[in-house]
């Protein structure tokens, strides 16, 4: 406890606070620009971090990371372009709420839930990091395979509309994920001899293209101004939030727990956590059939979850030097640079510095509320811009974003072509979300399945031999079979009472 008090004092210097504030604003800006990811934001400041003292450098970097993940919600809600993959799960809900004039509530929920998820993640990180890391370390490829299957069941949750259209969309996403080098054998697949396709279709350009380009095309084909929703004053942003959150306490708890746990498992990150939280929330919600059409209920769990996952991913990273995702990998790089070597002895050798970093992460998540609300009010003005000016700007941002993240011209082609595909899909009421889910989970599913099979020498029962994998398999099965069983049971009871 004494160390934590000391850590807090370390942060209370004007220099550290100023750097945290600057890093926060920078993170919000980068995260809010589609295509400029949180990982990239951190990678770009490494040369600056190089010249700073350890405490301000590390405090700045964790602040930046926390803000950038939250900021991905903003362009998602306002322009339907998820700023980071972690915001993709609920982009339709937040976007439709904004269009319907419930922007204050949607954005308010994103800010507050992100902060709550982040704070929970930080507290778990400070309190139970070594214990949780031991559990996360026990996940082998068998367990990760079931985790991917569990994630796929979310396809039902995110599709809405006709089930077979959701299925076709999911298959399309899985097929897109196959393009490029086979992750296991290194063979080329679906590249048609093109050198550009060897690396596969890059995820961020596909994401930007599929969500943003159809909006631009629809406007271009039928230009028509939509009366912009009124700007919500800062106070109004929080108006409905309190009562909504009181109503959805369960989702807050669920989102925080799922986020921390999934985040702590190496190989699964904030994006997968958000999808799983969304699916669980939909299953237990009374308005589950409204998910995807813009209900506040759909936002709470996943937006809490993706921020909790950032803290979760820091757990194996600090305790074992195993980063859960690329963002954490870069943060760990800065740790090394500042002589804070991750490992189980980090709490013994360097208790003050590591606790200062965790404390900074906690404060960053609290700082997210004022900074996030401010950014939200600035960003809201964006949708006041007439659409004939906004849409070309969106297209320009899509092109810059796709290029910036991949540094290849082919990424722009990918973005535009997938945008066209998505436009045609939406015209015929095929949901996009399952395709994105397939793209996120496809590589993980394929690799864990094949590698497990190679290792088990083709013995399929190896997938349920370990206690952990058996538990996850059972959970997946229950989630798949329960709705069918319930349906049959209800039918049977209905028949009897009739």
């Amino acid at each position, binding site marked *: 406890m004494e160390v934590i008090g000391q850590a807090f004092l370390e942060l209370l210097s004007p220099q550290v606070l100023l750097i945290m504030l600057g890093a926060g604003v*920078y993170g919000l*800006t980068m995260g809010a*620009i589609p295509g*400029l990811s949180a*990982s*990239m934001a951190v*990678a*770009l*400041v*490494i*040369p600056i971090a190089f010249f700073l003292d350890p405490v301000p450098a590390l405090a700045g970097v964790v602040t930046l990371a926390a803000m950038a993940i939250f900021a991905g919600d903003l362009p998602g809600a306002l322009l339907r372009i998820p700023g980071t993959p972690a915001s993709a799960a609920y982009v339709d809900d937040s976007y439709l709420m904004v269009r319907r004039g419930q922007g204050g509530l949607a954005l308010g929920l994103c800010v507050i839930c992100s902060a709550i998820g982040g704070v929970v993640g930080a507290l778990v990180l400070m309190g139970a990091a070594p214990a949780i890391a031991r559990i996360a*370390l*026990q*996940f*082998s*490829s068998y367990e990760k395979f079931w985790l991917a299957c569990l994630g796929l069941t979310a396809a039902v949750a995110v599709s809405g509309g006709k089930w077979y259209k959701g299925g076709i969309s999911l298959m399309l996403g899985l097929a897109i994920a196959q393009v*490029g*080098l086979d992750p*296991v*054998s*290194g063979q*080329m697949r679906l590249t048609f001899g093109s*050198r*550009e396709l*060897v*690396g*596969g279709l*890059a995820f961020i350009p596909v994401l930007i293209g599929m969500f943003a380009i159809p909006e631009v095309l629809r406007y271009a084909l039928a230009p028509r101004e939509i009366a912009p929703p009124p700007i919500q004053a800062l106070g109004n942003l929080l108006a409905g939030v309190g009562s909504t959150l009181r109503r959805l306490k369960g989702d807050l708890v669920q989102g925080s727990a799922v986020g921390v746990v999934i985040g702590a498992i*190496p*190989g699964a990150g904030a994006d997968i956590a958000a999808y799983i939280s969304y699916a669980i929330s939909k299953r237990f919600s009374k308005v589950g059939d409204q998910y995807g059409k813009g209900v506040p209920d759909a936002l709470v769990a996943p937006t809490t979850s993706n921020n909790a996952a950032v803290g979760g991913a820091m757990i*194996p990273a600090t*305790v*074992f*030097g*195993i*980063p859960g995702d*690329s*963002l954490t*990998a*870069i943060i760990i*790089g800065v740790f*090394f*640079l500042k*002589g804070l*070597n*991750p*490992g*189980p*002895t980090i709490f013994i050798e360097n208790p003050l510095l590591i606790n200062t970093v965790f404390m900074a992460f906690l404060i960053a998540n609290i700082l997210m509320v004022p900074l996030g609300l401010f950014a939200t009010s600035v960003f809201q003005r964006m949708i006041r811009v007439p659409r004939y000016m906004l849409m070309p700007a969106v297209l320009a941002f899509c092109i*810059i974003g796709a*290029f*910036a993240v*991949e*540094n*290849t*011209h082919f990424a722009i082609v990918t973005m535009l072509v997938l945008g066209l595909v998505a436009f045609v899909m939406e015209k015929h009421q095929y949901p996009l979300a399952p395709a994105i889910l397939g793209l996120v989970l496809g590589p993980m599913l394929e*690799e864990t399945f094949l*590698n497990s099979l*190679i*290792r088990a020498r083709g013995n399929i029962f190896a997938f349920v031999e370990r206690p952990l994998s058996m538990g996850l398999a059972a959970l997946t099965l229950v989630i798949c079979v329960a709705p069918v069983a319930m349906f049959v049971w209800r039918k049977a009871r209905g028949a009897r009472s009739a």
Partner: protein
Amino acid sequence: MKHLSLLRTSVVIAAGLVAMPAIAQQWPERPITLIAPAGAGGGTDATARLLALGLEQQLGQPVNVVNQGQGGGVVGFTSITTAEPDGYTLGVIYNFAHYSPMGQGDFDAADMTPIGQFNFDPAGFHVRADSEWTNITEALDAIKADPGAYDIACGGGCGGSWPLAFASLLDAYDVDLSQVRMITGQGAAAALQEMVAGGFDVVPSSVPEAGSLIEAGLVRGLAVFGSERLAAFPDIPTLEEETGMVLELGAWRGLVGPAGLPEDVTAKLVAALEAVYNDPEFQSAMTDRGFGLRWRDAEDFGAFMAEEEVSVRELVRVLGL
């Protein structure tokens, strides 16, 4: 910062679109693009950024790191080797000789102008803490006796630096390589975690990558494939101490340009790189992050790449990759 990244982007676009003739009198008179065939955040990215910082001071022009990690680096290597040889596009490269024989890319050492090697990290031989093997000889004998019985992690793809270093060792120990089971994955960190969870028997990787798990008492390092023990891990013996085999195997990084770089540009770059390498600030930044230092000048580096190309082609054939 937003403007900075836009500027960065537009500079890159400009560099890509405008075909510049090789006017080298005042080189460098505009910013230089340094391609890292790896994603942001990994070791290659980190060393590229440290190098860029040093080169900027030496050359007086901004050096922008551009990450192209798609296809396991193939896209980045292709960009480097097909770039205009005007000195404005350079690359930080690493063990690449496997891409061409594996049919993943068509570039080789002849497509590059070597400038210098600045890093070498020896591979380490890592097993679970409760493994029955207490030294590398026991492990090698067991694998030799039944090569198909053990699961060996490639880390990333099986043509990468660590698995090939491991395969070279087995080959030198007369193990039947065609029987050995090597399994791909998402990098060394993920493979080490999988090994702790019970998934692998051996993970070859750099020692610092396994450092935290070794400290935690979950992983043991049996040997390091370098000429001397690592300062940070004095308890792990070298291959030579344990087996008498003199092998130096692992991952290296160096600076190159596309083939046909003008001689005066190459000379300036060689001098600049050597100055960066000898800068104590660069050296301590590399060491602090766990990267080994190793210098080969342009000529040695070129010879080394050509040599490695021959041996790796043979290994890829025997392993059946």
